[in-house]
């Protein structure tokens, strides 16, 4: 059965390691914070200028001066630090952030990503996504395998304006975990109950299926 958004986040959380500095994008990536494995410390970076992002505040404790990059009210934690946007993207550009998780409209088999614009339809802007994908060493995309029209979002080449090129390393969808390799998407894991055939049928880009594909473990 296809994963819920929460399960996608839960699966991505398994990639976290102790001491990681992590930037989580808006949407499913934000949910990853709810599944940080026991016993490890992960520090969340919010690109509007915060390291050590805490949970949403309880009612009455919210502050207009303390938000995340999704403009949601949040909190700090012991050990948090605040800085300006230049330093924030400075540490991103310098590769100090260990993992970036973000959403996408399309990913191509060579690791290109499109996520910020649908010509003639939607113009929201790239925000910090272009900076993040241009510099992060380790980028995981969290997205649905297909769009609302049922078309694959894992393509031979992106059709929408790009956010970055050859940068995505891993993709987690409701159906599968895939690695972006030099030869295309490599299928690593299936969602419980999802068949390899279904994943093949919903992946338009080149898909490598090397062996019996295991089911995801949570």
């Amino acid at each position, binding site marked *: 059965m296809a994963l819920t958004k929460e399960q996608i986040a839960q699966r991505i959380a398994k990639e976290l390691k102790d001491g990681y500095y992590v930037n989580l994008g808006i949407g499913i990536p934000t949910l990853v914070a709810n599944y940080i494995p026991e016993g490890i410390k992960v520090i969340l970076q919010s690109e509007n200028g915060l390291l050590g992002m805490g949970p949403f505040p309880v009612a009455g404790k919210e502050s207009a001066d303390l938000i995340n990059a999704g*403009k949601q009210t949040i909190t700090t934690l012991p050990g948090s630090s605040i800085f300006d946007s230049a330093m924030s993207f400075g540490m991103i550009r310098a590769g100090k952030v260990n993992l970036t998780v973000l959403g996408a409209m399309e990913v191509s088999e060579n690791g290109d990503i499109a996520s910020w614009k649908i010509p003639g339809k939607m113009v929201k802007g790239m925000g*910090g996504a272009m900076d993040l994908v241009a510099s992060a060493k380790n980028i995981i995309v969290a997205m649905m395998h297909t769009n609302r029209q049922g078309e694959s979002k894992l393509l031979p080449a992106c059709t929408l304006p790009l956010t970055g090129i050859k940068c995505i390393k891993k993709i987690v969808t409701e159906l599968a975990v895939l690695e972006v390799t030099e030869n295309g998407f490599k299928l690593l894991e299936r969602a419980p109950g999802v068949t390899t055939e279904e994943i093949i049928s919903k992946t338009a880009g080149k898909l490598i299926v090397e062996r019996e594909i295991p089911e995801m473990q949570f």
Partner: protein
Amino acid sequence: MNKIYKNADEAVADIKDGAVLMLGGFGLCGIPENCIAALVKSGPKNLTCISNNAGVDDFGIGLLLQQKQLKKMIASYVGENAEFERQLLSGELEVELIPQGTLATRCMASGYGMPAIYTPAGVGTEVAVGKESRIFNDKEYLLEYAFDADFAIVKAWRGDADGNLVYKDTARNFNPLMAMAGKITIAEVEELVPSGEIDPNQVHTPGIYVHRIFQGKNYEKRIEQLTLTK
């Protein structure tokens, strides 16, 4: 030496049609509310506005959009503003969207006297079109130029008579960078204190960058996405 202005009206009085403005803030967090209100009142047109976002329909830069005071908007994300989208699609408003880190660093470059910087953000995308690029250590970077703004308008939590500024929490964001980058920098603060009350070690923006400062009033400090732990 007197940097203290009475209020926003006085501080923005010489901002005329066609000026290039930087406006601090991220979303509605840390925006110079008083100065925006004063600009709506004084009414300069054909402004170029450099700011990370464009406010919402009825607050922040959205108020300047309502009055059609903007000719051009330079921002990284404009997704919360229907009037913005309307003006953009109708061609009334010129828009340049640039990566957020590039925006921040082009402000800093200006304040640090660096004419241009190199960043990998946007390589291979439409952001790179027409821009010079260069390889350093096997990685491609774009050359991005420092901004040149007539006025930088920022909001701080506290400020003193020397123009030193301290920001609070993530309301810092672009404010210190833009404060450094204006030919004339106007700072509105929630609390204006006498010089000597701010620990020199805790100053975020040294007064040398600030030309005008005033104590703001009636801060609304609107929350865009109230999100609570249940």
